[in-house]
Protein backbone atom coordinates (compact mmCIF):
# COMPACT_ATOMS: atom_id res chain seq x y z
CA UNK A 1 0.00 0.00 0.00
CA UNK A 2 1.36 3.37 -0.94
CA UNK A 3 1.56 6.11 1.67
CA UNK A 4 -0.79 8.08 -0.48
CA UNK A 5 -3.88 6.56 1.06
CA UNK A 6 -2.82 7.24 4.65
CA UNK A 7 -3.99 10.36 6.43
CA UNK A 8 -1.12 11.46 8.66
CA UNK A 9 -1.96 12.20 12.27
CA UNK A 10 0.55 14.41 14.01
CA UNK A 11 0.72 16.15 17.37
CA UNK A 12 -1.37 19.16 16.39
CA UNK A 13 -2.27 18.63 12.73
CA UNK A 14 -3.50 16.16 10.17
CA UNK A 15 -1.85 15.77 6.79
CA UNK A 16 -2.70 14.35 3.40
CA UNK A 17 -6.44 14.55 3.99
CA UNK A 18 -7.89 14.76 0.48
CA UNK A 19 -8.19 12.05 -2.13
CA UNK A 20 -5.92 12.35 -5.15
CA UNK A 21 -7.08 9.30 -7.05
CA UNK A 22 -8.15 11.24 -10.13
CA UNK A 23 -6.81 11.12 -13.67
CA UNK A 24 -4.30 13.92 -14.19
CA UNK A 25 -3.64 14.46 -10.50
CA UNK A 26 -0.54 12.32 -10.33
CA UNK A 27 2.38 11.67 -12.64
CA UNK A 28 1.85 7.94 -12.79
CA UNK A 29 -0.97 5.49 -12.31
CA UNK A 30 -4.30 5.22 -14.07
CA UNK A 31 -7.05 6.56 -11.86
CA UNK A 32 -9.88 6.72 -14.38
CA UNK A 33 -13.12 5.10 -13.36
CA UNK A 34 -13.22 1.39 -14.15
CA UNK A 35 -16.05 -0.70 -12.77
CA UNK A 36 -14.12 -3.96 -13.21
CA UNK A 37 -11.17 -2.60 -11.27
CA UNK A 38 -13.54 -1.40 -8.58
CA UNK A 39 -15.20 -4.83 -8.43
CA UNK A 40 -11.81 -6.45 -7.85
CA UNK A 41 -10.49 -4.01 -5.30
CA UNK A 42 -13.63 -3.18 -3.32
CA UNK A 43 -14.01 -5.21 -0.14
CA UNK A 44 -16.59 -5.60 2.57
CA UNK A 45 -15.81 -7.21 5.91
CA UNK A 46 -18.63 -7.77 8.34
CA UNK A 47 -17.57 -7.81 11.99
CA UNK A 48 -20.94 -8.38 13.53
CA UNK A 49 -24.61 -7.96 12.81
CA UNK A 50 -27.10 -8.26 15.63
CA UNK A 51 -30.79 -7.50 15.71
CA UNK A 52 -30.13 -3.84 16.42
CA UNK A 53 -26.54 -3.07 15.46
CA UNK A 54 -24.15 -3.76 12.62
CA UNK A 55 -20.44 -3.18 12.30
CA UNK A 56 -18.80 -3.63 8.94
CA UNK A 57 -15.89 -2.31 6.90
CA UNK A 58 -16.05 -0.86 3.42
CA UNK A 59 -12.56 -0.96 1.97
CA UNK A 60 -11.19 0.80 -1.13
CA UNK A 61 -14.03 3.19 -1.57
CA UNK A 62 -13.98 6.99 -1.62
CA UNK A 63 -15.19 9.17 1.24
CA UNK A 64 -17.78 10.83 -0.99
CA UNK A 65 -19.53 7.50 -1.57
CA UNK A 66 -19.21 6.19 1.99
CA UNK A 67 -20.47 9.51 3.32
CA UNK A 68 -23.42 9.40 0.93
CA UNK A 69 -24.51 6.08 2.44
CA UNK A 70 -24.11 7.42 5.97
CA UNK A 71 -26.14 10.52 5.17
CA UNK A 72 -28.84 8.51 3.41
CA UNK A 73 -29.18 6.05 6.29
CA UNK A 74 -29.77 8.94 8.66
CA UNK A 75 -32.02 11.14 6.60
CA UNK A 76 -33.43 9.43 3.52
CA UNK A 77 -34.32 5.84 4.29
CA UNK A 78 -38.05 5.91 5.04
CA UNK A 79 -39.62 4.62 8.23
CA UNK A 80 -42.92 4.91 10.07
CA UNK A 81 -43.72 7.23 12.98
CA UNK A 82 -46.78 8.87 14.50
CA UNK A 83 -47.57 12.03 12.57
CA UNK A 84 -51.00 13.10 13.81
CA UNK A 85 -52.33 12.61 17.33
CA UNK A 86 -56.02 13.14 18.03
CA UNK A 87 -56.68 13.82 21.71
CA UNK A 88 -60.07 12.87 23.07
CA UNK A 89 -59.15 13.23 26.69
CA UNK A 90 -56.01 14.28 28.46
CA UNK A 91 -56.33 15.23 32.09
CA UNK A 92 -52.73 14.30 32.90
CA UNK A 93 -50.20 16.92 33.90
CA UNK A 94 -48.37 16.52 30.60
CA UNK A 95 -49.63 18.91 27.95
CA UNK A 96 -51.27 17.67 24.75
CA UNK A 97 -48.51 18.89 22.45
CA UNK A 98 -45.74 17.49 24.66
CA UNK A 99 -47.45 14.12 24.86
CA UNK A 100 -48.02 14.13 21.09
CA UNK A 101 -44.36 14.89 20.54
CA UNK A 102 -43.31 12.03 22.81
CA UNK A 103 -45.58 9.62 20.98
CA UNK A 104 -44.13 10.79 17.67
CA UNK A 105 -40.64 9.88 18.82
CA UNK A 106 -41.55 6.30 19.81
CA UNK A 107 -39.84 3.93 17.32
CA UNK A 108 -42.38 1.50 15.88
CA UNK A 109 -41.82 -2.01 14.65
CA UNK A 110 -43.41 -1.67 11.21
CA UNK A 111 -42.07 -2.86 7.90
CA UNK A 112 -42.10 0.41 5.90
CA UNK A 113 -42.58 -1.58 2.68
CA UNK A 114 -46.11 -2.47 3.81
CA UNK A 115 -47.22 1.15 3.59
CA UNK A 116 -47.57 3.62 0.74
CA UNK A 117 -46.65 7.27 0.83
CA UNK A 118 -49.31 9.74 1.88
CA UNK A 119 -50.31 11.90 -1.05
CA UNK A 120 -50.03 15.43 0.33
CA UNK A 121 -51.80 16.93 -2.69
CA UNK A 122 -55.02 15.23 -1.65
CA UNK A 123 -57.68 16.75 0.53
CA UNK A 124 -56.99 16.19 4.22
CA UNK A 125 -60.14 14.12 4.65
CA UNK A 126 -59.19 11.62 1.90
CA UNK A 127 -55.46 11.66 2.51
CA UNK A 128 -55.20 8.93 5.13
CA UNK A 129 -56.24 5.44 4.06
CA UNK A 130 -55.61 1.88 5.20
CA UNK A 131 -52.78 1.71 2.62
CA UNK A 132 -50.75 4.54 4.11
CA UNK A 133 -51.75 4.97 7.74
CA UNK A 134 -51.47 2.92 10.89
CA UNK A 135 -53.74 3.76 13.78
CA UNK A 136 -52.58 3.34 17.34
CA UNK A 137 -54.81 4.00 20.30
CA UNK A 138 -53.94 4.88 23.85
CA UNK A 139 -56.68 4.67 26.44
CA UNK A 140 -55.64 4.64 30.06
CA UNK A 141 -57.41 5.67 33.23
CA UNK A 142 -55.56 5.80 36.50
CA UNK A 143 -57.36 4.44 39.55
CA UNK A 144 -56.54 3.71 43.15
CA UNK A 145 -55.47 0.18 43.92
CA UNK A 146 -57.80 -1.03 46.69
CA UNK A 147 -55.44 -3.89 47.47
CA UNK A 148 -52.39 -1.72 47.93
CA UNK A 149 -50.15 -2.89 50.77
CA UNK A 150 -50.43 -0.77 53.87
CA UNK A 151 -47.87 2.01 54.35
CA UNK A 152 -46.73 1.67 50.76
CA UNK A 153 -45.45 4.84 49.10
CA UNK A 154 -44.74 3.31 45.71
CA UNK A 155 -47.11 4.77 43.06
CA UNK A 156 -46.91 1.48 41.17
CA UNK A 157 -48.48 -0.28 44.15
CA UNK A 158 -50.80 2.48 45.24
CA UNK A 159 -52.37 3.12 41.85
CA UNK A 160 -53.26 1.29 38.68
CA UNK A 161 -51.91 2.69 35.42
CA UNK A 162 -49.85 5.29 37.26
CA UNK A 163 -47.22 4.95 34.54
CA UNK A 164 -48.10 5.02 30.87
CA UNK A 165 -45.61 3.19 28.67
CA UNK A 166 -45.07 2.86 24.95
CA UNK A 167 -46.43 -0.68 25.18
CA UNK A 168 -49.83 0.77 26.12
CA UNK A 169 -50.20 2.00 22.54
CA UNK A 170 -52.51 -0.53 20.92
CA UNK A 171 -52.53 -1.26 17.20
CA UNK A 172 -55.92 -0.92 15.55
CA UNK A 173 -55.76 -2.58 12.14
CA UNK A 174 -57.97 -0.87 9.58
CA UNK A 175 -59.72 -2.78 6.77
CA UNK A 176 -57.26 -4.97 4.89
CA UNK A 177 -54.60 -4.36 7.54
CA UNK A 178 -56.23 -7.14 9.58
CA UNK A 179 -54.87 -9.55 6.97
CA UNK A 180 -51.67 -7.80 5.88
CA UNK A 181 -50.43 -7.20 9.43
CA UNK A 182 -51.66 -10.51 10.79
CA UNK A 183 -48.16 -11.91 11.27
CA UNK A 184 -46.51 -8.70 12.35
CA UNK A 185 -48.81 -6.54 14.43
CA UNK A 186 -47.50 -3.04 15.00
CA UNK A 187 -45.81 -2.61 18.37
CA UNK A 188 -43.31 -0.09 19.70
CA UNK A 189 -39.84 -1.58 19.30
CA UNK A 190 -38.96 -0.53 22.84
CA UNK A 191 -42.02 -1.27 24.98
CA UNK A 192 -40.81 0.35 28.20
CA UNK A 193 -40.50 3.97 27.15
CA UNK A 194 -42.32 6.10 29.73
CA UNK A 195 -44.86 8.38 28.06
CA UNK A 196 -46.65 9.96 31.01
CA UNK A 197 -47.36 9.59 34.71
CA UNK A 198 -50.91 9.64 36.04
CA UNK A 199 -52.67 9.92 39.38
CA UNK A 200 -56.12 8.54 40.27
CA UNK A 201 -58.82 10.30 38.27
CA UNK A 202 -56.52 11.32 35.46
CA UNK A 203 -57.09 9.89 32.03
CA UNK A 204 -55.56 9.80 28.59
CA UNK A 205 -57.49 8.82 25.49
CA UNK A 206 -56.06 9.42 22.05
CA UNK A 207 -55.55 8.02 18.55
CA UNK A 208 -52.22 8.34 16.78
CA UNK A 209 -51.98 8.16 13.00
CA UNK A 210 -48.61 6.82 11.86
CA UNK A 211 -47.31 7.41 8.34
CA UNK A 212 -44.19 6.99 6.24
CA UNK A 213 -41.59 9.72 6.33
CA UNK A 214 -37.88 10.42 6.04
CA UNK A 215 -35.36 11.67 8.57
CA UNK A 216 -34.71 14.82 6.54
CA UNK A 217 -38.27 15.86 7.30
CA UNK A 218 -38.22 14.97 11.01
CA UNK A 219 -35.74 12.98 13.10
CA UNK A 220 -38.54 10.69 14.30
CA UNK A 221 -38.60 9.15 10.81
CA UNK A 222 -34.90 8.27 10.90
CA UNK A 223 -34.53 4.47 10.95
CA UNK A 224 -31.19 4.65 12.73
CA UNK A 225 -30.22 5.73 16.21
CA UNK A 226 -26.74 6.30 14.87
CA UNK A 227 -25.07 5.60 11.56
CA UNK A 228 -21.43 6.55 11.59
CA UNK A 229 -18.06 5.60 10.22
CA UNK A 230 -14.47 6.08 11.26
CA UNK A 231 -11.30 5.53 9.30
CA UNK A 232 -9.12 2.51 10.03
CA UNK A 233 -6.26 3.64 12.32
CA UNK A 234 -2.68 2.71 11.48
CA UNK A 235 0.27 2.65 13.86
CA UNK A 236 3.76 2.41 12.42
CA UNK A 237 6.55 1.71 14.87
CA UNK A 238 9.59 3.18 13.14
CA UNK A 239 12.20 2.42 15.78
CA UNK A 240 11.93 -0.62 18.06
CA UNK A 241 10.56 0.12 21.52
CA UNK A 242 11.76 -2.26 24.22
CA UNK A 243 11.65 -2.96 27.93
CA UNK A 244 9.96 -0.55 30.31
CA UNK A 245 9.54 1.91 27.50
CA UNK A 246 7.46 -0.70 25.66
CA UNK A 247 5.17 -1.00 28.69
CA UNK A 248 4.71 2.75 28.81
CA UNK A 249 4.10 2.70 25.06
CA UNK A 250 1.41 0.08 25.54
CA UNK A 251 -0.24 2.29 28.18
CA UNK A 252 -0.67 5.08 25.62
CA UNK A 253 -3.20 2.98 23.67
CA UNK A 254 -6.48 1.27 24.56
CA UNK A 255 -6.05 -2.30 25.78
CA UNK A 256 -5.50 -4.84 23.03
CA UNK A 257 -3.91 -2.44 20.54
CA UNK A 258 -0.24 -2.94 21.48
CA UNK A 259 1.28 -6.17 22.69
CA UNK A 260 4.82 -7.01 23.79
CA UNK A 261 6.58 -10.00 22.29
CA UNK A 262 8.95 -12.43 24.01
CA UNK A 263 11.92 -10.12 23.33
CA UNK A 264 10.20 -7.36 25.26
CA UNK A 265 9.56 -5.40 22.08
CA UNK A 266 6.29 -3.62 21.48
CA UNK A 267 4.32 -4.52 18.33
CA UNK A 268 0.95 -3.53 16.94
CA UNK A 269 -1.54 -6.29 17.66
CA UNK A 270 -4.84 -4.74 16.58
CA UNK A 271 -4.83 -1.17 15.34
CA UNK A 272 -8.59 -1.38 14.67
CA UNK A 273 -9.18 -1.05 18.41
CA UNK A 274 -7.27 2.22 18.58
CA UNK A 275 -9.27 5.33 19.31
CA UNK A 276 -6.50 7.58 17.94
CA UNK A 277 -6.29 9.56 21.15
CA UNK A 278 -2.75 10.74 20.18
CA UNK A 279 -1.62 10.16 23.77
CA UNK A 280 1.58 8.58 22.47
CA UNK A 281 2.51 11.83 20.71
CA UNK A 282 2.56 13.72 24.01
CA UNK A 283 5.50 11.72 25.34
CA UNK A 284 8.98 12.86 24.40
CA UNK A 285 10.46 9.39 24.69
CA UNK A 286 8.47 8.19 21.67
CA UNK A 287 9.36 11.21 19.55
CA UNK A 288 10.07 10.01 16.01
CA UNK A 289 9.61 6.37 16.99
CA UNK A 290 5.99 6.04 16.00
CA UNK A 291 3.80 7.33 13.21
CA UNK A 292 0.04 7.47 13.54
CA UNK A 293 -2.33 7.54 10.62
CA UNK A 294 -5.66 6.50 9.22
CA UNK A 295 -6.42 4.66 6.02
CA UNK A 296 -8.35 7.11 3.90
CA UNK A 297 -10.23 4.44 1.97
CA UNK A 298 -11.06 2.07 4.81
CA UNK A 299 -14.34 2.87 6.52
CA UNK A 300 -15.50 1.17 9.69
CA UNK A 301 -19.24 1.63 9.70
CA UNK A 302 -21.38 1.34 12.78
CA UNK A 303 -25.12 1.26 12.24
CA UNK A 304 -27.60 1.16 15.09
CA UNK A 305 -31.20 0.54 14.15
CA UNK A 306 -34.19 1.88 16.08
CA UNK A 307 -35.82 -1.52 15.68
CA UNK A 308 -38.15 -1.26 12.69
CA UNK A 309 -35.65 -2.73 10.24
CA UNK A 310 -32.52 -4.80 10.64
CA UNK A 311 -29.36 -2.70 10.35
CA UNK A 312 -28.19 -4.53 7.21
CA UNK A 313 -31.52 -3.80 5.57
CA UNK A 314 -31.08 -0.11 6.33
CA UNK A 315 -27.69 -0.17 4.61
CA UNK A 316 -29.15 -2.03 1.62
CA UNK A 317 -31.88 0.57 1.35
CA UNK A 318 -29.36 3.41 1.49
CA UNK A 319 -27.51 1.89 -1.46
CA UNK A 320 -30.76 1.59 -3.37
CA UNK A 321 -31.74 5.16 -2.56
CA UNK A 322 -28.46 6.46 -4.00
CA UNK A 323 -28.88 4.25 -7.07
CA UNK A 324 -32.43 5.52 -7.57
CA UNK A 325 -31.25 9.11 -7.28
CA UNK A 326 -28.66 8.54 -10.02
CA UNK A 327 -31.07 6.62 -12.26
CA UNK A 328 -33.83 9.18 -11.82
CA UNK A 329 -31.58 12.14 -12.57
CA UNK A 330 -30.17 10.29 -15.59
CA UNK A 331 -33.63 10.23 -17.13
CA UNK A 332 -34.66 13.76 -16.21
CA UNK A 333 -34.72 16.16 -19.14
CA UNK A 334 -32.31 19.05 -18.66
CA UNK A 335 -34.23 22.33 -18.74
CA UNK A 336 -32.84 25.68 -19.76
Amino acid at each position, binding site marked *: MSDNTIVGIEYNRVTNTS*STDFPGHQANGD*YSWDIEKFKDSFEINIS*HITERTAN*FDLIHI*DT*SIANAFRRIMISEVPSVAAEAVYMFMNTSVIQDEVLAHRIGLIPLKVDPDLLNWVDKTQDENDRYTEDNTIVLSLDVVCTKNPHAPKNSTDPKELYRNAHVYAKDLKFEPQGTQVESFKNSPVVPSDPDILLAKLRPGQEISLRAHCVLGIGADHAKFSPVATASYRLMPTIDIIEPIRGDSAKRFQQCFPSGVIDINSNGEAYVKDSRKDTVSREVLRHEEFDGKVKLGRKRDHFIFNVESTGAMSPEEIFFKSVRVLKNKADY*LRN*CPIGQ
Partner: protein
Amino acid sequence: MADTAEDVHMTEEKVEEEQQEQEYDLDKIKLLPGASEDGTAASFQIIDEDHTLGNALRYIIMKNPEVEFCGYSIPHPSENKLNIRIQTYGNISAVEALHQGLDNLSELCTVIEDKFSEKIEAGGYKTTEP
Protein backbone atom coordinates in the same frame (compact mmCIF):
# COMPACT_ATOMS: atom_id res chain seq x y z
CA MET B 1 -46.95 -20.90 0.32
CA ALA B 2 -50.01 -19.82 -1.66
CA ASP B 3 -49.85 -16.51 0.15
CA THR B 4 -46.27 -15.92 -0.85
CA ALA B 5 -47.00 -16.61 -4.51
CA GLU B 6 -49.82 -14.13 -4.40
CA ASP B 7 -47.60 -11.54 -2.75
CA VAL B 8 -44.96 -11.90 -5.42
CA HIS B 9 -47.60 -11.51 -8.08
CA MET B 10 -48.95 -8.41 -6.41
CA THR B 11 -45.57 -6.77 -6.07
CA GLU B 12 -44.86 -7.45 -9.74
CA GLU B 13 -48.07 -5.72 -10.68
CA LYS B 14 -47.20 -2.82 -8.42
CA VAL B 15 -43.77 -2.45 -9.98
CA GLU B 16 -45.29 -2.45 -13.46
CA GLU B 17 -47.79 0.19 -12.47
CA GLU B 18 -45.08 2.32 -10.96
CA GLN B 19 -42.94 2.07 -14.07
CA GLN B 20 -45.81 3.24 -16.22
CA GLU B 21 -46.61 6.01 -13.83
CA GLN B 22 -42.96 7.06 -13.42
CA GLU B 23 -42.94 10.66 -14.52
CA TYR B 24 -39.82 12.72 -14.65
CA ASP B 25 -39.72 16.11 -13.03
CA LEU B 26 -39.14 18.71 -15.73
CA ASP B 27 -37.70 21.16 -13.20
CA LYS B 28 -35.38 18.68 -11.49
CA ILE B 29 -32.28 19.77 -13.36
CA LYS B 30 -31.61 22.83 -15.50
CA LEU B 31 -28.70 24.35 -17.35
CA LEU B 32 -27.29 27.47 -15.70
CA PRO B 33 -26.06 30.49 -17.67
CA GLY B 34 -22.33 30.45 -18.35
CA ALA B 35 -22.02 27.38 -20.56
CA SER B 36 -19.48 27.45 -23.36
CA GLU B 37 -20.89 27.56 -26.88
CA ASP B 38 -19.63 24.12 -27.84
CA GLY B 39 -21.18 22.62 -24.70
CA THR B 40 -17.92 21.27 -23.30
CA ALA B 41 -18.23 23.40 -20.19
CA ALA B 42 -21.50 23.91 -18.37
CA SER B 43 -23.09 24.34 -14.95
CA PHE B 44 -26.26 22.61 -13.90
CA GLN B 45 -28.66 23.28 -11.10
CA ILE B 46 -30.35 20.30 -9.47
CA ILE B 47 -33.37 20.82 -7.22
CA ASP B 48 -33.92 18.89 -3.97
CA GLU B 49 -30.47 17.38 -3.78
CA ASP B 50 -27.64 18.04 -1.34
CA HIS B 51 -24.10 16.93 -0.50
CA THR B 52 -25.26 13.30 -0.54
CA LEU B 53 -25.58 13.24 -4.30
CA GLY B 54 -23.44 16.30 -5.00
CA ASN B 55 -20.19 15.04 -3.56
CA ALA B 56 -20.63 11.46 -4.81
CA LEU B 57 -21.42 12.72 -8.31
CA ARG B 58 -18.52 15.17 -8.24
CA TYR B 59 -16.16 12.35 -7.32
CA ILE B 60 -17.32 9.99 -10.03
CA ILE B 61 -17.30 12.71 -12.72
CA MET B 62 -13.77 13.71 -11.69
CA LYS B 63 -12.77 10.07 -12.25
CA ASN B 64 -13.62 10.50 -15.93
CA PRO B 65 -10.35 11.07 -17.85
CA GLU B 66 -12.19 13.28 -20.36
CA VAL B 67 -13.16 15.72 -17.62
CA GLU B 68 -10.83 18.59 -16.83
CA PHE B 69 -12.78 20.06 -13.93
CA CYS B 70 -15.79 19.21 -11.84
CA GLY B 71 -17.01 20.96 -8.73
CA TYR B 72 -20.24 21.44 -6.85
CA SER B 73 -21.72 23.88 -4.42
CA ILE B 74 -24.83 24.46 -2.36
CA PRO B 75 -25.25 28.20 -3.06
CA HIS B 76 -27.39 28.83 0.00
CA PRO B 77 -28.01 26.49 2.95
CA SER B 78 -31.71 27.24 3.15
CA GLU B 79 -32.39 26.71 -0.54
CA ASN B 80 -32.56 23.08 -1.63
CA LYS B 81 -30.45 23.65 -4.70
CA LEU B 82 -27.26 22.03 -5.89
CA ASN B 83 -25.01 23.61 -8.50
CA ILE B 84 -22.55 21.41 -10.35
CA ARG B 85 -19.95 22.62 -12.83
CA ILE B 86 -18.35 20.36 -15.43
CA GLN B 87 -15.59 21.27 -17.89
CA THR B 88 -14.25 18.65 -20.27
CA TYR B 89 -11.09 18.53 -22.38
CA GLY B 90 -13.28 18.82 -25.49
CA ASN B 91 -13.89 15.25 -26.62
CA ILE B 92 -17.24 14.96 -24.87
CA SER B 93 -19.85 17.50 -23.85
CA ALA B 94 -20.58 18.44 -20.26
CA VAL B 95 -23.99 16.78 -20.51
CA GLU B 96 -22.38 13.55 -21.70
CA ALA B 97 -19.93 13.71 -18.81
CA LEU B 98 -22.83 14.20 -16.40
CA HIS B 99 -24.74 11.28 -17.85
CA GLN B 100 -21.68 9.03 -17.81
CA GLY B 101 -21.14 10.02 -14.19
CA LEU B 102 -24.71 9.13 -13.26
CA ASP B 103 -24.43 5.79 -15.07
CA ASN B 104 -21.16 5.02 -13.31
CA LEU B 105 -22.63 5.95 -9.94
CA SER B 106 -25.58 3.65 -10.54
CA GLU B 107 -23.22 0.85 -11.58
CA LEU B 108 -21.12 1.39 -8.47
CA CYS B 109 -24.21 1.06 -6.26
CA THR B 110 -25.07 -2.24 -7.94
CA VAL B 111 -21.58 -3.60 -7.21
CA ILE B 112 -21.80 -2.54 -3.56
CA GLU B 113 -25.26 -4.03 -3.13
CA ASP B 114 -24.20 -7.33 -4.75
CA LYS B 115 -21.05 -7.58 -2.70
CA PHE B 116 -22.85 -6.81 0.55
CA SER B 117 -25.59 -9.40 -0.07
CA GLU B 118 -22.90 -11.89 -1.03
CA LYS B 119 -21.21 -11.30 2.32
CA ILE B 120 -24.50 -11.51 4.21
CA GLU B 121 -25.37 -14.81 2.54
CA ALA B 122 -21.89 -16.20 3.14
CA GLY B 123 -22.36 -15.56 6.86
CA GLY B 124 -19.42 -16.24 9.14
CA TYR B 125 -19.83 -13.01 11.07
CA LYS B 126 -20.72 -12.66 14.73
CA THR B 127 -24.38 -12.21 15.58
CA THR B 128 -23.72 -10.89 19.06
CA GLU B 129 -22.01 -7.73 20.07
CA PRO B 130 -18.44 -8.33 21.21
